[in-house]
């Protein structure tokens, strides 16, 4: 299901920071937490497409730089009461190298699917 791509070393990403991996399906944000876990999400906030890689990492969460939605790094789910989800990708750390798994079956749309936005109550 996944194609695995070597993307660099753990130390290429600052703790509590993130870097972008450019893929044919769009940018993927790779995050490193304080406890050195690494997570990857599509670099588009489910709210209005903000670049999640530019946000603030805290615990296992990321705060979007545009309007402060908070998402779980592990699942991409927005923290309640916001509703939405950013696609997440598996990351493996092997011998100090990071590997990113990209789905090779379904190709990703290049813009946020409209229905995601519609699914949220406008307040």
């Amino acid at each position, binding site marked *: 299901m996944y194609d695995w791509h070597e993307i660099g070393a753990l130390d290429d990403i600052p703790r509590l920071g993130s870097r972008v991996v450019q893929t044919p399906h769009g940018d993927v944000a790779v995050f490193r937490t*304080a406890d050195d876990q690494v997570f990857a999400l599509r670099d588009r906030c489910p709210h209005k497409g903000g670049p999640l890689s*530019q946000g603030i990492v*805290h615990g296992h969460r990321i705060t979007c730089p545009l309007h402060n939605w908070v998402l779980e790094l592990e699942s991409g789910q927005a923290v309640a009461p916001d509703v939405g989800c950013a696609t997440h990708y598996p990351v493996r750390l092997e011998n100090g190298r990071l590997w990113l798994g990209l789905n090779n079956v379904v190709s990703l749309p290049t813009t946020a699917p409209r229905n995601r936005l519609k699914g949220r109550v406008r*307040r």
Partner: protein
Amino acid sequence: MKERLVLVGNGMAGMRTVEELLAIAPDKFDITVFGSEPHGNYNRIMLSPVLAGEKTVDQIMINDLSWYAEKGIRLHAGHAVVDIHRARREVRAADGTVASYDRLLLATGSNPFILPIPGNDLPGVIGFRDIKDVETMLAAARTGKNAVVIGGGLLGLEAANGLMKQGMQVTVVHVLDTLMERQLDPVAADMLRANLEERGLRFLMGAQTAALLGEERVRAVRFKDGLEIPTDLVVMAVGIRPNFELAKQIGIYCERGIVVNDTMQTYDPRVYAVGECVQHRGQCYGLVAPLWEQAKVCANHLARYGIGRYQGSVTSTKLKVTGIDLFSAGSFNGGPGCEEIVLRDPARGVYKKLVVKENRVQGAVLYGDTVDGSWYFQLLREGTDIGAFRETVLFGHAHMADSGRDGFSVMTMADDAEICGCNGVCKGAITKAIAEKKLFTLDEVRAHTKASASCGSCTGLVEQLLAATVGTIGKTPAEKPMCKCTEHSHDMVRAAIREQHLTSLAQIFEALNWKNPDGCHSCRPALNFYLISTWPSEAKDDQQSRFINERVHANIQKDGTYSVVPRMWGGLTNPQELRAIADVADKFQIPTVKVTGGQRIDLLGVKKEDLPKVWADLNAAGMVSGHAYGKSLRTVKTCVGTDWCRFGTQDSTGLGVKLEKMTWGSWTPHKFKMAVSGCPRNCAEATIKDFGVVCVDSGYEIHVGGNGGIKIRGTDLLCKLATEAEVKEYCCAFMQLYREEGRYLERTAPWIERVGLSYVKSRIVEDEENRKALCARFLESQQYAQIDPWAERAGGRVDAHEFQPLQRVG
């Protein structure tokens, strides 16, 4: 094994502490509760409506017996504790039940004071404290006709009103000539008495009770002057005494109550106490609001979070007699240096009085119209300087013009009126969410509705809605925790950073027991600012705790590109700079070039990876970062001044450039803007800036605390100065005072409204030594701040990872 907590006193304060504890550390303790009353925990305040027949006992239960069972709490209801063995850590009840503890919480409340007169122990003579007393009163009302209430205070009047509602003929006896002397001034007291007399209460004022007469049961009251009146019931409501017999008996230090420290701990470190039985900083309380605060702090320490201090409370009162509106708070009788602002409208039956000292509210008495009670109480607790709206303050909050920071009364707005402009949330949506989802705090409202979650300018309105919808018991904002990661307020954290010499985030998290190991997006940027402004030479600026704009020194745009605003000192530029800007725009295909509201040029739509190259080119033409992205010095706007203008009185352009060169690069709690106008025509709009200079023939007027933006606020005049050198010194001192004492994301306008102009004057204008010291600290910190962040990054030396993708795949 779990630790054991025993609570003595199943009342309001003790059980609130238990509930707070369950909320933050549900599994920490095995809990046992002893209460002398044979009920669950009920809302004692509501006994008055029960007596008046407006509520039933069931309706005032907070936690019934099944709740205790559900939570696994052992409740011994109807069992008074008679002894405690502190060495063995054992509690013993009257019926012999024994329970051991690791931590003990005393919350024994208080007892009604019973006058030491003959006959005070006759049946039919009671206090007004618990369900039993109310039952006795209701029984008396069914059989008897007359009642006497001794004591014309809050409790006495509520008792009298209730008995009257139950059909009794009630006489209120009071030793003084005015009612409720601890809450009301004579004018309001007389209005109240007239109103109650109209309703059918009788009063005997200035009357001293000598004895209660009767054989099997009380039948009359005799006064010093010989007068006797017949009665079937006597309610003593002459005051309460903290109930600390038990504590005293077991050797815990007591004075007028059980003495506790700021963590609610008694002299025995295993024993805590809360509620009316305690004495804190010499003060005993008889109202619930302070007890809620005590409970919160106590629960925190029981849970070993070890944070939060109780620092005493200011209280306010309302009389719970339906149809009578009465509010009182603070010291309302004045004193040396106090003035009274009074509004009397006999036709409407309205009386309002504010006691004010140096333009700060000290006390308030409201009769007939109490809608603004909570507003005055807020002004009182926050020590707000009311100078600006003193003339209209008594007309109430609704009267304030809506452009001002204080807004209008939100309750008068329609349901579909928009409250939060950023997120399009209307009033109805907010009140509905508060009611349906049982929201209690601002954070919860933000989370559920998004109102006030963005720019925050509607926070005041949302808070008013919350207060009006859920009730008004709240903490002073000054004590609000910074965020969900801590119980500490901004001011407390800052004090800790200074006093404990904390120089890194890790140290703060450790020393102050942060709940989340690396904080959140709300506290980290604030803490980072507090660190670098307190310890400029020691603390390391933590890039991961900065918002993206400050991390990459450009403004993120909605499509993820960035904008770049180079500094133009005092708004001056020249052909060489303009050429460089034009070249950069061409070379990197920057879609928009715009003149900003801050007298500079903005390049919008720059791709992130191009930023270092754009900066390199701008640097080469002599331009540095304009900090258009930062909580920092922004622009110094100027007008043309004496160089060209026929009205110019001083060199406003030159002074503006000097101020900007001196202050650029400095980080501030929120953004900081300046302007220098060459004459009072004020073309540079200096009177809506954080620090504005208006040049006049004889020198320079210094204006501070202005704000354009969301809520416009004109500046206050700080002082007048004669020379440029002085202006520079005052500028540094003002900025430094704000840097040291402003809360993160609080601009100078709300800051000055909070601390008051006279405070700022006292620190800067009237205290030369302090001004010079502030100025020196500012200049010292500038040594570390005035490094062009663009130059550092243009060369790729700093934070290169920010601007390059990690990898390209596929």
